[in-house]
């Protein structure tokens, strides 16, 4: 049965072992685009956690309660999920613009890009593994996977932005400055995260 340790293992797995950015290579667009400064990386990370968590819960509920009974789950899966995620992102955009205009400006185009971010859609698809159990358990596991995935994403972004802020000051060859060295660093970071596989 689902003990606490099962939930913890799920959380740990999606946050570190199968980190969305560094192990599954989802969501590279905001990862590379927003990690130039730690302040915007943290802001984006929290926005993603929020969207991922809510999207996980909402999409799982709609899947189990609307799509499965109607037999439409295979057909409308992606479409409906995107609809939900897009609405959530619009909502988050409005809130951020109101609450913190500097963060809104700093994130710029990358905030609405959470919608097409494969990491969010990816997590919602991963949640479908729980569709065969009870609704309550499945919903809880989806929520944990959403929050865990988001936190893992945030962690990767903070690590990356810290490294990129340092890289900015170094005398690199002109061709490598900016995005090229960021990709090389991401690869090294991904290799480092492979160290977690033993804990799966």
């Amino acid at each position: 049965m689902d003990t606490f340790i099962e939930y913890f293992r799920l959380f740990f797995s999606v946050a570190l072992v199968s980190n969305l950015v560094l192990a599954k290579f989802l969501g590279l667009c905001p990862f590379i685009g927003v990690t130039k400064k730690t302040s915007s990386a943290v802001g984006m990370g929290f926005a993603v956690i929020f969207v991922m968590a809510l999207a996980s819960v909402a999409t799982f509920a709609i899947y189990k309660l609307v799509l499965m009974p109607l037999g439409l789950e295979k057909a409308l899966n992606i479409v409906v999920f995107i609809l939900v995620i897009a609405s959530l992102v619009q909502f988050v955009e409005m809130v951020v613009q109101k609450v913190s205009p500097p963060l809104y400006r700093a994130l710029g185009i990358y905030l609405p890009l959470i919608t097409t971010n494969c990491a969010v859609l990816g997590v919602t698809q991963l949640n479908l593994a729980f569709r065969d159990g009870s609704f309550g358990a499945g919903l809880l596991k989806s929520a944990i996977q959403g929050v865990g995935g988001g936190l893992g994403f945030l962690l990767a972004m903070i690590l990356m932005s810290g490294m990129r802020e340092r890289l900015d000051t170094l005398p690199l060859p002109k061709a490598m400055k900016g995005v090229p060295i960021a990709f090389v660093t991401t690869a090294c970071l991904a290799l480092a995260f492979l160290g977690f596989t033993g804990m799966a």
Partner: protein
Amino acid sequence: MISLAPPLMPVLAAADAAPSPVGTVALSILVVGLLGAVFGIILFVASKKFAVKTDPRVEEVLGALPGANCGACGLAGCPAYAEGVVLKGLAVNLCAPGGAKAAKMIAAVMGVEPGESERRVSVLRCRGSRARAKERMEYRGVADCRAAALVLGGPKACTYGCLGLGTCVEACPFGAIVMGADGLPHVLEARCTACGRCVDACPRHLYVLAPEKRTVHVLCSSRDPGRATRAACEVGCIACKACERACKFDAIHVVDNLAVIDEEKCKNCGACVRACPQAIIGDFRKMRKALAASARSATNAGGEAAAS
């Protein structure tokens, strides 16, 4: 356990009864449409609650600016200036790199007159190249003019002159300053936007932003008395006042051992240029004509400024 199946029973029965593709499609459209409507209403309500008043003109003004974030306007960057123009009523012609073109566009957005904006360029007021200005010490250290200037007053015998280590070259965001082979930086006037970064970067404050229509400039900044200047540099102002005597418009005077041009009175006639025995007053007309000619003949005219 909640399920929406019961209310839709009739629909389901219909679907099971006739499992036609049309049925599935119709059902899909219905479901997505309903969901879309629900979310749409939620977002509509949210947009009213979280409304943020933004003036669309800020975006338009921002579009008219070059986006270099150089700070010449006096604000932190192009977005800040755009906001300043629209929300705080700043002048529309403060953007030097944008120039007259940007000023006109911004004026059109704001519905005002563009106002006067003449082109300015940066001028280096020193001719102390490695060959002409003496070094009094062998400086070994950080290759930055600001750092070198802090070491016992700098490696040059003249404590007012150019150190030639290239801090201004680094500072220019438009690549308009190049280091000459003689150890003096040269301003490529075609690329200069008078943003003022070089003025801030030079620890000796040798750069000045002058209107392009001015062609006569005193190219020395030394306030040392004549004998000390002559000992330190071949092309330094020795305060002999020959320029003062030659000027028919009372536009040039020696103040604090240095010739200074009164811009209001100067007519760019060049009499002082010819009178100066040290050849430190430059007439930029000749140089600009030569540059224009060689640009016309489609050769690269960078870096050669013989201001004499």
